[in-house]
C-alpha cells in the first residue's frame, strides 16, 4: 500500500527532501514561480486531485482539455473528482466548498452520464470521492451509500474513499463509523483519504482540519483498508497554508505505522 500526502507548495523544501512519502496529490497546478516544483515532479508519483468541474453537468471542452493537460503534466495514475454540486446552474451562487448533490434518481443519472463522458475523454482511470453531508435534504430518495453503489456499478469508475467524511457523517447521524462504513461499496475503492478532525466553532462539532489524524481515525483507517481489496494508496488529506511540515511528516509516518 502506497502512503502519501498532498503537495503543499509552502512546504516544497521539506517535501523535496522528505523520506517515507510515496506520492503527492495535486490540488492546484504548480505555480510558475515555485522553485521546488521541478524536484517534486521528478521525485514523486503525482495524483491529479484538482477541481475539474461538477458532474451534475457535463464538463465543457475547456475543462476537459484542462484535465487532460494536468493529467499529462503529472503522469497521474488516475484522475480524481468529487461527488459535488456546489454552484447553481446559472453561476449566481457558489459555496466554494465541496457539497454533495441530492441523492435522487435524477442526479444519479446525471452523474453517471457525465462521469462516463469524462472517463471516455481521459487517458487515465477516473476515481470519484465521497463528500460529507452535514444535514439531510428531505427530497433525497435514497441513502448516500446506495446512491454511490449504483453509481459505481453503472460507471465502473474507481472509488476514492474519504474516511473522515464517513466518520463525520457517522458522528452527526449518531452511528458507529464502522457500521456506516460497511454500507459503502468498498469493493470499488482505489484510494483512501485520511485526515484529522477538530472542533469547529460554527458547527459546534468536529470537522475536517489540517491536523494530525487521531489514534481513533488511524485505527479506523486500518480497519477500512483491510476491507478494500483493490485499494492501492492512502493519502493524508491535508492542504492548507497553515499546515506545518512537522504535522504532515509525522502524520504520514503514523498512517504508515497504522497500516503495517
Amino acid at each position, binding site marked *: 500500500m502506497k502512503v502519501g500526502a498532498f503537495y503543499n507548495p509552502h512546504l516544497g523544501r521539506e517535501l523535496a527532501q522528505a523520506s517515507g512519502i510515496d506520492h503527492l496529490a495535486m490540488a492546484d497546478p504548480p505555480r510558475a514561480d515555485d522553485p521546488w516544483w521541478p524536484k517534486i515532479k521528478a521525485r514523486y508519483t503525482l495524483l491529479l486531485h484538482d477541481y475539474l468541474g461538477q458532474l451534475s453537468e457535463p464538463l465543457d471542452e475547456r475543462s476537459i482539455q484542462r484535465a487532460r493537460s494536468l493529467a499529462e503534466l503529472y503522469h497521474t495514475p488516475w484522475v480524481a473528482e468529487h461527488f459535488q*454540486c456546489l454552484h447553481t446552474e446559472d453561476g449566481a451562487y457558489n459555496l466554494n*466548498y465541496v457539497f454533495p448533490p441530492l441523492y435522487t434518481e435524477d442526479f444519479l443519472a446525471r452523474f453517471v452520464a457525465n462521469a462516463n463522458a469524462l472517463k471516455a475523454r481521459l487517458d487515465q482511470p477516473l476515481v470519484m470521492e465521497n463528500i460529507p453531508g452535514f*444535514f439531510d435534504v428531505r427530497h433525497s430518495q435514497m441513502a448516500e451509500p446506495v446512491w454511490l453503489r449504483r453509481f459505481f456499478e453503472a460507471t465502473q469508475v474507481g472509488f476514492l474513499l474519504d474516511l473522515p467524511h464517513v466518520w463525520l457523517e457517522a458522528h452527526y447521524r449518531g452511528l458507529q463509523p464502522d457500521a456506516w462504513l460497511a454500507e459503502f461499496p468498498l469493493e470499488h475503492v482505489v484510494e483512501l483519504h485520511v485526515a484529522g478532525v477538530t472542533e469547529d466553532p460554527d458547527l*459546534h462539532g468536529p470537522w475536517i482540519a489540517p491536523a494530525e489524524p487521531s489514534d481513533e481515525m488511524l485505527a479506523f483507517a486500518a480497519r477500512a483498508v483491510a476491507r478494500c481489496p483493490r485499494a492501492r494508496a492512502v493519502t493524508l488529506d491535508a492542504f492548507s497554508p497553515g499546515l506545518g511540515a512537522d504535522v504532515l511528516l509525522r502524520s504520514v509516518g503514523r498512517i504508515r505505522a497504522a497500516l503495517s
Partner: protein
Amino acid sequence: MNDRALQDLVIRALADAPFRRSPEWRQRALADPDRVEQFARFLARHYYFERIVHFFKYSAALSGITGRRPEAVLGQPSFDALRPALVLGSRDSARTVAALVVAHVKSGRPSAPIPYHADLLRYEESMMVVEAGPRVWRERENGERKTDDAAPQTVAGTELLDLTYDLPTVLPQLLRPWTAVPEAPVRPVRLIIARSRYGRVAVAKATDAIVSIMDLADGRKTLEDLAREAGLRPAELQATLQGLTELGAVRFSTGS
C-alpha cells in the same frame, strides 16, 4: 420544480443569509433549519477566509509591522454581526467584508512607517470586490463569439484605481523575505482591475486610451464611434480593445 432546481435552492439557502429567512425557503422545510444555519455560517467563514488570505496577502506579509493579520477579523464580533446580511459571492457583501478587513488592519500601530499603506489597502480591497459576482463555470456549446458588428462594452465591476505610490514595483518584494519595509516610489499610477468571465482577477496599468474606452464602451457605440470619440487610430483602438478583452474589462455585445 426538478431536482436540479431544488439543489440550486439549497445552494442559494446556504449562500444567501436573507434568503434563508424568507418564507420561500422556510416553507419548503427541506432540511433542519438549525443544521442549515450552522453549515451556512461555517461556509461563510471559509469563503471569506480564502478570499482574505488571497487578496490581502501583502497586508499579511506586513503583519509583523502592523500587528494585524487580515484574516483575524473573521474571529471578531464585527464579522459575526455581518452574517445575517451576507450573500456569498455578492459584490455588496465582498465590499462590506473587505471594508471590515481594512478597518481592522488600519487599527494597528505599525512599528515602522509604511508610507504606501493606505494605497495598498485600497488596492487589496478593490481586488476582493472586483472578484465578486456571478461567473461562468462552463461554456455553452454555442458560447459567446465576437462578431464583426459587435459593440464593445465595459464589464460591470471593473475598477480604475488611482494611487499615489507605484505599488506594482513593491508588491513582489513584500512577498520575499525582508528586514526593512520595502519602499515604493512616490509616482502616481492608475491601475485597471478586471475579472474574466471565469472569475480570474487581473491588474494592468491604465493608459489614457484605456481610460477613454472604459468611459465610452457602452455596448451601443461601434468601433468607428469609439475611435472617433476617443481620438484613437484604428490600430491603437484594436490593440487596446484586445488587451481589455483579455483582461476581462471589455466584452463584445452581439445584441442577442
